[in-house]
């Protein structure tokens, strides 16, 4: 079991905790801050972040990146991936990191294509 050596540092060693319990509270505070930032951005919707970047609003990119950051800390500290062996880490994380962006990429490209086809008027959507 993993309790023999738990790695107690997060942010690449920037923040070190005295015990596992302290680390959990630290991660909770960090996750809460990220969620609060997300909600605040979602309510304010700053005009400067509404311009488009790679087919999506910059604000949406920020949301997605912050979500992945949250997912990382939940998996690494709550699910203790940080304390697992490299081989187990890889066999869990790699399939997901490869397959999910791949599936998202091909389906969103396809959806964008269908949108263009309907938009240029080959299909009547409202009859």
């Amino acid at each position, binding site marked *: 079991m993993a309790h023999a050596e738990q790695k107690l540092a997060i942010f690449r060693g920037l923040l070190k905790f005295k015990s596992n319990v302290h680390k959990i509270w630290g991660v909770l505070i960090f996750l809460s801050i990220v969620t609060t930032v997300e909600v605040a951005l979602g309510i304010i919707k700053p005009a400067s972040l509404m311009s488009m970047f790679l087919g999506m609003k910059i604000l949406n990119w920020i949301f997605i990146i912050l979500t992945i950051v949250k997912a990382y800390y939940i998996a690494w500290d709550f699910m203790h991936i940080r304390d697992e062996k490299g*081989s187990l880490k890889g066999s869990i994380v790699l399939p997901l990191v490869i397959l999910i962006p791949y599936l998202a990429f091909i389906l969103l490209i396809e959806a964008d294509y269908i949108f263009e086809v309907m938009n240029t008027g080959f299909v009547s959507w409202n009859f």
Partner: protein
Amino acid sequence: MEVAATNPSEETNVWGGGNKPLNASYGKMMMWFFIVSDALTFTGFLVAYGFSRFKNIDSWPIADEVFTHFPFLHGIDAPMYYVALMTFILIFSSVTMVMAVDAGHHMNKAKVTFYMLLTIIGGAIFVGSQAWEWKNFIKGEYGALETRGGQILQFVDGDTGKRVALDAFAASIATDRSTHESSNGIWFVGEFSLPTYSLDEVKAGFTANENLVIRGEKLNAKGQKIVLSREESLVKINDAVDVVEGANLIHNEYGNRLFADFFFFITGFHGFHVLSGVVINIIIFFNVIRGTYEERGHYEMVEKVGLYWHFVDLVWVFVFTFFYLV
């Protein structure tokens, strides 16, 4: 790759069994494999949602206008606060779960029991919140018309730009039309319950109120719904064939029909995961009280359900982003 045995004094025998290259027990590894495959299932759902959304990128409903309720704050526009609260509840129950796992490592039965109980309570609150969210979504708030092509027409006050509910303006026309039940007439044909107002009543009320205009599904460049002028609205309302109130799997008043379908399916599937998580947590909770793991000498079972519980939290983080924020 490193294939050293966990205990150096043991004889290293790679193929003879007994060594753990991943340094994880059988049960924990199977839980991880389940989580990986379940993560891909959720990916399929969320990416399908993204597909539909990108396909209808210029007419997708705006989440801020759909989820505006907060308990005890009636009629106050509170977009997202409630789901943010739900997110905090779930993250917090995740934390109590890690605390239980940590206490399990120290063989502290009292603490494990306490934190498991908190986790169960957090999960139950979350499921309850989701049920409340569904109730509001199904009930709807303003009501709308649907055209033959399945587009939703919503009503807006032309002066203030605020949404107007059907019961604020619909005329009252006497009619003997009643819900057709499959027990009457042609026995195999039935229908859902009729909306509160008939199409004629809505149309008459719309014509009588000069300040009302119609809003379609299309978005303008700023991402707001395009509002028609009064003249355009008077023409457009003749396309309507149905009155829609609230949402079900076939119609919804918020816009694209797929929006409600995906909402029910994805949050429902996630809610079902939370529910089963709560049930499993309760079973483990009673095992802890009984002292099963004390006898076994380790609390790894708590760690395994903990993994599942964190995974449910992890999925919610993504559902929250893609349904409510983006």
